[in-house]
């Protein structure tokens, strides 16, 4: 079920610069980076959005009409009223820092680690911000659009074992 108007209105009353849009029955609000944590905390505590369905990131490099580089998407759901709401935070280089929402949703822990690993988004206050998919020594953020599909040679950078030595 899409989000109800009172929820969006209450969010509007509480925070400035909320941009609302709708696409195929799904409501999205773009929240300024500075108030992202407070807005999600408000949605959780006062509007009953108790489930973080997903947290992910989109790189809008070379995307038509895009103004911002990264879009962080929080998909929230209210399990008693079935409302669903997408909260987005737009980020631009060089400052890709947002406040971690792990204090609100435990489940955000690995999702934020994934966004850090794949896109290089820094989550301030995350308890354990390490790479989750790529090896620790990996130095790039591979889902960024300016990272080459075939990598920069990392996949070939291993010692060769031969018959003689193994």
């Amino acid at each position, binding site marked *: 079920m899409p989000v109800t108007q009172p929820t969006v209105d209450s969010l509007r009353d509480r925070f400035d610069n909320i941009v609302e849009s709708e696409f195929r029955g799904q409501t999205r609000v773009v929240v300024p980076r500075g108030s992202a944590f407070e807005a999600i905390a408000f949605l959780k505590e006062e509007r009953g959005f108790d489930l973080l369905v997903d947290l992910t990131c989109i790189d809008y490099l070379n995307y038509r009409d895009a103004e911002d580089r990264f879009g962080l998407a929080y998909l929230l759901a209210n399990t008693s009223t079935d409302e669903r709401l997408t909260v987005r935070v737009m980020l631009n280089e060089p400052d890709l820092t947002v406040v971690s929402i792990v204090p609100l949703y435990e489940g955000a822990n690995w999702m934020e680690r994934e966004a850090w690993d794949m896109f290089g988004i820094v989550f301030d206050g995350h308890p354990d911000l390490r790479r989750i998919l790529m090896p620790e020594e*990996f130095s790039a953020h591979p889902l960024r659009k300016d990272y080459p599909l075939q990598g920069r040679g990392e996949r070939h950078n291993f*010692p060769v*074992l031969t018959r003689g030595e193994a």
Partner: protein
Amino acid sequence: MAIELPENVVVSKLDALGSWCRKNSLWPMPFATACCGIELMATGASRHDLARFGAEVFRFSPRQCDLMIVAGRVVMKMLPVLQRIWQQMHEPKWCISMGACASTGGVFDTYSVVQGIDRFVPVDMYVPGCPPRPEQLIQAIIDLQDKIQREGTIDGSEFSSVTRQQRKRALMELPIIHQPSQTVSRTN
């Protein structure tokens, strides 16, 4: 000088005898990382019955195995594990690269997938296909048995023969891209 042999006595070389024992009791180590692993399981299961060729004892400990079957794509995070497992296996040991992914990376020509395990570990047999049918894997095992019988020596000296070394060196000299600025140092 002719020696009369009694009945039921066969003369052979010790090398041939050793190889014969080895080839008929291969213990595979299933390194199944993706969909090919399903066909690997089918190969070991009742319909295709790898036991007919003396290679049914799948063990999940590299210490007990002598045939590593790499079934599936290997990503760069997995490759050090693969190498560690290969090193943990005792000589004499062999390796089958099963499927397009293990042999070449297959369709996964991406930053994280190793483009053929033979760049980093020695491979004896390649099985083409995506995934290969169990019959193909069985054929590879039969071919490997022939190879073991042909090349095998009781002291394992085939593993360091000159031709073997040359073949391995040719593999190692495949173009491997090094970009010093991006390289990640790895020691193990």
